[in-house]
């Protein structure tokens, strides 16, 4: 079994398959369908024993670094806060093969959009290295 991180993004990545409006401009029924699909994905992964974790992130981002001796930490929201890559959340799955990880990612990407058609959203698939510290 190998663990993969499936990352969803608010922005960044390859050019979108097609443009779509922000979700608060969708038909309310399309919003419901989209959210129901994501809930179904989590249930499916959980039921198959493949789900390790699923989390969403707020779009608020702060970069921080050590400020030096006797100095406060230095923070910024980035060199290009409006265009830089921004992670929205992830699934952490434990699966038999890389093919299965890609299959799950493609399924997530088929989530219904504002018109009920698949969003074709790009999903960033990253393999977790063995031997790192893990607590549970």
């Amino acid at each position, binding site marked *: 079994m190998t663990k993969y991180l499936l990352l969803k993004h608010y922005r960044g990545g390859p050019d979108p398959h097609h443009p779509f409006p*922000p*979700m*608060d*401009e*969708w*038909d*309310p029924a*399309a*919003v*419901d369908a989209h*959210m*129901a699909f994501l*809930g179904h994905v989590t249930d499916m992964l959980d039921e198959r024993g493949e789900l390790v974790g699923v989390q*969403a992130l*707020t*779009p*608020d981002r702060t970069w921080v670094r050590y400020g030096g001796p006797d100095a406060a930490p230095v923070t910024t929201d980035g060199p290009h806060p409006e265009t830089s890559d921004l992670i929205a959340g992830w699934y952490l799955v434990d699966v038999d093969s890389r093919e299965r990880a890609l299959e799950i990612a493609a399924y997530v990407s088929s989530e219904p959009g504002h018109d009920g058609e698949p969003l074709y959203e790009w999903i960033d698939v990253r393999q977790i290295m063995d031997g790192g510290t893990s*607590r*549970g």
Partner: protein
Amino acid sequence: MTERRGRSAPSTRSEHPAHPWDERTLRGLIPRVLAGLLRRGEEFDVAEDALQEALVDALRAWPERPPRNPEAWLTTVATRRLVDARRSAAARGRREEAVATEAPAGPTENGDDTLLLLFCCCSPDLSPASQMALTLRAVAGLTTQEIAEAFAVPEATMAQRISRAKRQVRGRPLNQPGDLAVVLRVLELVYVTGHRGRVDLTTEAIRLARQLILATDEPEARGLLAMMLLNHARLPARLDAHGHIVPLDRQDRSLWNVAEITEGIALVQSALAVQSNERPPGRYQIEAAIAALHDDAPSADETDWIQILEWYDSLVALTDDPIRQDPASLLGRAVAVGHVDGAPAGLREIGNLRTVMGRHHRWHAALGYLSELGGDLPGAADAYAAAARLAIDVAERDHLVRHAARLRSAS
């Protein structure tokens, strides 16, 4: 690891009607037994570990052979565990001076044990996260696994947090008075942590607050319990069949828990009855009074917003500089102003809070609410969409996005 103490008592208990016990009565004994061990001079951390082991033994043994005196049974078994722990520690070659130390038995106290233990677990030296974890383990009797699940962290993380907290309170005398305000704050934090997985911290907080009011006459303690009950009463209507959040004004009030509302109203009335101009009611009593007015309204349209606004005036008067010290209360007050004096008046109040709360999703949600109240549906949708972007809870974010989408399609 299996769940050691489930939500319901072992089914075999019904075979022993002469010796009724269940998980609730078992856990109710924890403060007394633990306080007894501490009065005998045992250290907090080892005594608490020994009692946890005794509780596991009890759940194994009691369904078959219920004890005549559960408290004495737990004390005996926990003491045996303490002796075992000392022996194995001594066998490892560690010097163990406590073996010889047999502290004199202190006076036996009952109702106050809960309060003294809460003071210990809510020691101001501990962080709020540690205070909550230690309280849930040492006073409420939850397992480390249950507490970890409630806070959505790995069990190893929670075990470490609890053992570190126990080491920090080690040596603190049990009879040392504590800060009741900190205890109330910790119980409130436990309550708002809510329900996750199999663990429901709302009912645990209510159970702890019930134990607390047996040990203190402080009106704020009753105010806190009342506030919890009056909010908890509405939880059955808070989610719809799909698990979506239903806001207060759209909830099916027939689903509200009438018994909890009745009890909460009686509690807040009894607390307010002993208050005076010299000793005005505190935050929890005021928040309970506001919750009671919502719970008492037969429909959202019949809410007594005039009285609610008066209570919000009292709430914001508790601090010298509410715009900096308590903007959340001003936000609630602005919504009440919108209902009493009209949406434009409420929106003016909200505008004053933008500099201090403009990065907070609740400010945008209140702006959306008042805009919708005033008939500005596009403005309300924009505000709800902004609130969704700032929300920190997935269910709340989804609700805000849905509401924005509904308002856009309606306008």
